[in-house]
């Protein structure tokens, strides 16, 4: 996209921001301008300091040095009071966090009004608010049902509520931290169309993303952070994906290519599985995973992937059907048993299911094997061994943290994912279930995950890859099946498929002919 707003007024200026956490410099002397009507993409490796920078802008953290200047509407820049989200909101800065901050059991309307007026006011007093929101929704295309409870909304809808919340407070600058990480490709497209409309209306927008294609397609300008410092600030028109990737990691990224390989014998088999209930239930699912192959599962999220992953993780009992590993039926499974027989699982929601944030990095690396003799003897933890192993995994998987003793919750999103990858893939599993494994990972880390999944396949493991990213699926998978409304299609060799066929099947068309 070309920049339409060369001479528009400055909306925001970050001036020499430095933020240290102990010995670690999360942001080093970062300066950044944003004009009204401009869409700026903020890029950087996992742990480069993007979220930290935006948290300073929004007043969650106070910078050690530097200041934030905002255009308060009258054209001149004034300093924003540090450390006060309230002041940031007043100054017209809206933020949509990497993790949503909505009250689950309030309605969308209540959430939007929260903090601006008392929730106890009569519904008549809300009429103006409602009218303003209806108008905003009509102009921006962000439609949500205002009276629905947050807990009933999908991820995409929740995000729209977050954006509306910012717009309702007359935001002139909107910050979105990895908004597309949790969206389906279709939802992402809608989001960017909306952002474009809003920018044309004069809103200044900063978004963080690891998906270079959408950065190229939807931003005017790109700023790149590396190790906390700004290393590039360019018009998007002058960039391509390869160049951006290089700027981020400092060297060229080589995507691993899948080599043709004869799949082995049947390894992990599902027969006529029924499980779960409601929208996400599995209906008569068959699967035959061979050793030495990557089997991709495509589908729009919410079509049974969650139940599928839970069943294989040993967390959801099957209602009927059969599960076999190497021809041995698996009965009465639980998570422990699945891990013990060599099933590695990478959960989709790593914050919820993957790590215990309050525990240290080394403890999180050991959690799945805590009862193994290498980690304990006679019920006593072998600290030295646990930390030793943690240090080697931190190195091997390039987990960026201050030390193996830091609480896992202090790590950046991508580095948390690396903890999960490290502890699961390290055990040389027979079967790997990877649900959205590269969600939130930077290009370097993504290619590293791909390399590791391919390596697992090449040594004879079977890999089930659940992903919404068709590029990722087509590049890695030997065969791809599509899940729709809880039914899994037959898996076809990737060579026989193209994006449009997959897209149709994901939307529920053409299922019959394919079977």
């Amino acid at each position: 996209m070309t920049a339409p707003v060369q001479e528009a007024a400055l909306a925001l200026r970050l001036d020499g921001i430095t933020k240290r956490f102990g010995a670690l410099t999360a942001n080093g002397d970062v300066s950044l301008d944003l004009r009204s009507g401009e869409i700026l993409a903020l890029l950087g490796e996992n742990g480069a300091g993007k979220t930290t920078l935006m948290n300073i802008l929004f007043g969650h953290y106070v910078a050690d040095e530097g200041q934030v200047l905002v255009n308060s509407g009258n054209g001149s820049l004034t300093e924003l009071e540090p450390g006060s989200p309230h002041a940031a909101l007043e100054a017209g800065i809206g933020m949509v966090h990497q993790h949503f901050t909505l009250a689950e059991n309030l309605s969308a309307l209540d959430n939007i009004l929260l903090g601006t007026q008392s929730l106890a006011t009569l519904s008549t007093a809300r009429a103006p608010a409602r009218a303003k929101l209806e108008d905003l929704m009509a102009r921006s295309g962000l439609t949500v049902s205002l009276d629905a409870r947050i807990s009933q909304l999908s991820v995409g809808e929740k995000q729209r509520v977050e954006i509306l919340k910012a717009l309702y407070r007359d935001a002139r600058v909107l910050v979105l931290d990895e908004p597309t990480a949790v969206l389906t490709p279709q939802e992402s497209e809608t989001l960017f169309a909306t952002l474009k409309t809003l920018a044309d209306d004069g809103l200044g927008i900063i978004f963080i993303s690891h998906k270079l294609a959408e950065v190229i397609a939807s931003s005017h300008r790109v700023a790149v952070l590396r190790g906390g410092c700004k290393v590039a600030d360019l018009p998007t028109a002058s960039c391509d994906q390869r160049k951006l990737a290089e700027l981020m990691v400092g060297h060229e990224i080589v995507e691993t290519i899948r080599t043709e390989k004869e799949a082995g014998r049947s390894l992990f088999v599902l027969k006529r599985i029924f499980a779960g209930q409601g929208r996400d239930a599995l209906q008569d699912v068959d699967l035959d995973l061979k050793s030495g192959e990557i089997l991709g599962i495509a589908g729009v999220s919410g079509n049974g992937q969650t139940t599928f992953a839970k069943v294989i993780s040993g967390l959801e009992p099957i209602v009927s059907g059969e599960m076999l590993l190497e021809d041995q039926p698996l009965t009465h499974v639980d998570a422990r048993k699945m891990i013990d027989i060599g099933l590695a699982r990478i959960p989709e929601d790593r914050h919820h299911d993957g790590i215990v944030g309050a525990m240290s990095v080394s403890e999180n690396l050991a959690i799945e094997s805590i009862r193994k003799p290498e980690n304990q003897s006679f019920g006593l933890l072998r600290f030295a061994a646990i930390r030793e192993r943690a240090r080697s995994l931190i190195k091997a998987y390039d987990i960026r943290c201050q030390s193996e003793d830091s609480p896992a919750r202090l790590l950046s999103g991508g580095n948390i994912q690396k903890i999960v990858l490290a502890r699961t893939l390290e055990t040389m599993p027979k079967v790997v279930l990877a649900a959205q494994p590269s969600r939130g990972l930077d290009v370097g880390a993504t290619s590293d995950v791909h390399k590791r999944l391919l390596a697992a396949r090449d040594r004879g493991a079977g890999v089930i890859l659940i992903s919404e990213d068709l590029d990722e699926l087509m590049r890695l998978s030997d065969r791809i099946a599509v899940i729709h409304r809880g039914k899994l299609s037959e898996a076809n060799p990737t060579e026989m498929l193209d994006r449009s066929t997959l897209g149709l099947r994901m939307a529920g068309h053409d299922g019959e002919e394919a079977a």
Partner: protein
Amino acid sequence: MIRFEPRGPVPVSRVLSVLVAAAVAALLLAAIPMAFAGLSVFGAYGLMVKGAFGSMFAFTEMLTRATPLILTGLAAAVAFRAKLWNIGAEGQLYAGAMAAVAVGTGAFGGPSLFLIPLVILAGALAGGLVMLGPTLLKTRLGVDEVVTTLLLNFIILLFVQMMLEGPMKDPMGMGWPQSEPILDEAALPKLMARMRIHWGLIIALVASLGVYFMLKRTVWGFEIRAVGENAAAARHSGIPVTATFVRVGLISGALAGLAGVGEVAGLKGYLTADLSPGFGYSGIVVAMLAGLSPVGVIIAALFIASIFVGADSMSRATGVSNYLADLMVAMSLLCVLVAGLFLRFKIRLVGAPAAKETAK
């Protein structure tokens, strides 16, 4: 206006100084009603300090009072670590006391050499078993353990009263609802001649260190912490969540049961329905004051025991009700909770020059 800004990790020295400040603030706040009651504040506090530390007798009395508080505090702390909300230490304490009496009066025979270990074991077991019910109801049926453990307190206390009026009633008790005294061979030895302080204190201290060690160094402790901090991730990682809850429930109940053992076998010698002036509930306060740290529990229990014993003695000397002690304990808890806020957040006054400090 006041604004809160989250802080990073806080050094231990900061934690300790804030806690001391909280204790001082609590005592200052409690001075207000004391002044209203017509006491000289310094005089009253002086009497309290004397009552808790003024003589060897006072000091050992304070330690005797701290003994059950350490154990019930531990019971709450270890359960709360796993987010198992055991509010039933009071009932578990009575269950432990009842079992100790049943075994200690020689009802089941057996060589007297093993009587003390048997009494201890029986008390711990009884407390643990009482907690088993609520734990299983929680893990199997999702019944809220706050409700079940709380209500069990009343059920057990009524059961104790029934037993004391019936099968356990001392025939020599001149009609008082109390049990037969335990045998001398079953009583926990005193720590000092002519003082009431007994071996229960040693048991409590050992238990604290044991719980500390378990949480920090063992697989069980690891699993308890993981389940408490994020049960979903623990389950996903193959940690037996149900078994962990059951284990924590048993440990927690057993610790509360030990408190009951100490009170009958170390102090009173027989069981009455007013054995505990709410040690089970005070244990929750102790655990909260200690920030759920097993070693902190010792300090918190000593603090609360000093207030109780000191206030008792002060009220005897001045005639002012010893409810003041409850008030001070409540104030301390509030102050410590507020202090926790100071530890987690930087608090800045807005509009003050402080807001400008980071500007160049």
